[in-house]
């Protein structure tokens, strides 16, 4: 029979208070970041009715907006903005391109609607070939650093179209291609009618 000499008292843990506070704050901070990331992943930032944050689109030369190589969303308040994400490597984009261009031709001289083509992660020579191939004439530019697509939390693929109303709120989201110019016009027309 062996006897353990008196060690039946639990030793007191002596982690300093400041270290405990620091550890808990750090853990809570990390959990907060994780929760924010999960929330962001599960809920798109942009949904119909939400205000669209300002963004600046750098345009391809030859596809300027009133001669300017940059266009800011905030400068277009009072106009309906059709933001169309596309890429030269995207087959469905090629399918809808003539319809989007046809719809643009309807509103081009009205001054009430602006179309912005945003070339999503693409190479410029192929993008230019695409623009020429479909005779696209509305302002177009690359999504540099994918900054604009991040605003729309656009991660479902191209094409996608976001229609912003004249007050700067998101009015309509189209995931995938439009089937006809009339389909696009049926969304835009009620937005500009009455004025």
């Amino acid at each position: 029979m062996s006897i353990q000499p008196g060690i039946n008292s639990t030793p007191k843990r002596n982690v300093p208070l400041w270290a405990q506070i620091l550890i808990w704050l750090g853990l809570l901070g990390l959990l907060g970041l994780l929760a924010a990331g999960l929330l962001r992943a599960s809920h798109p930032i942009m949904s119909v009715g939400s205000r669209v944050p300002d963004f600046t689109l750098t345009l391809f030369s030859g596809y300027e907006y009133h001669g300017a190589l940059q266009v800011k969303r905030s400068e277009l308040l009072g106009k309906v903005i059709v933001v169309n994400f596309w890429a030269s490597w995207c087959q469905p984009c090629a399918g809808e391109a003539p319809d989007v261009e046809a719809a643009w031709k309807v509103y081009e001289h009205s001054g009430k609607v602006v179309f912005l083509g945003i070339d999503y992660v693409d190479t410029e020579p192929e993008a230019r070939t695409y623009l020429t191939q479909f005779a696209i004439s509305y302002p177009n530019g690359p999504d540099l650093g994918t900054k604009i697509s991040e605003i729309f939390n656009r991660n479902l693929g191209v094409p996608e179209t976001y229609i912003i109303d004249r007050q700067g709120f998101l009015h309509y989201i189209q995931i995938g291609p439009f089937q006809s110019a009339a389909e696009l016009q049926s969304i835009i027309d009620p937005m500009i009618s009455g004025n």
Partner: protein
Amino acid sequence: MKKSVYLLFIVICVILMFSVVPARSISAQQPTPSDDEVNAIASQLFCPVCQNTPLDVCPTQACRQWRDLIRQMLAEGKSAAEIKQYFVTNYGASVLPEPPRSGINWLIYIVPPVAFLLGVFLLFQAFHTWKKAVPDPGSAPDYTDPGKPDPGSASAVKDPYISQLEDELKKRT
């Protein structure tokens, strides 16, 4: 004889001159970069569209376009760093295999080593405390004489039960 040697010398010089000039012009050209050279850079980048697919093995048309772009930039004399920077500027930081060391991304680089060091510190503290709690074998109390506790030992104040047990054992011997 002397004249023919002189002529021969001129002919040799002319031949040498014509043989050197094209060689120079060839060396001045930028050779088309090989697939290996392109893939060496492409393997350090990720497809901006397909998630977690390195650019050198990505089979999509988009990735083929990007590999062609790398080839073109290499032919223009751009360095690997310049090409990578171009990709980050145009397609975002997600093309890099690891997040850039800026802004909130620093957390990724700071938190793990800090957590590791904190863990080491806490373990050290815990071991230190445990070591204090275990009595040194050299200073073990003399259990043969319950009336003479080891001074300074944790068991200086005897448990009555242990004392009684020791007394019983003593009586048996």
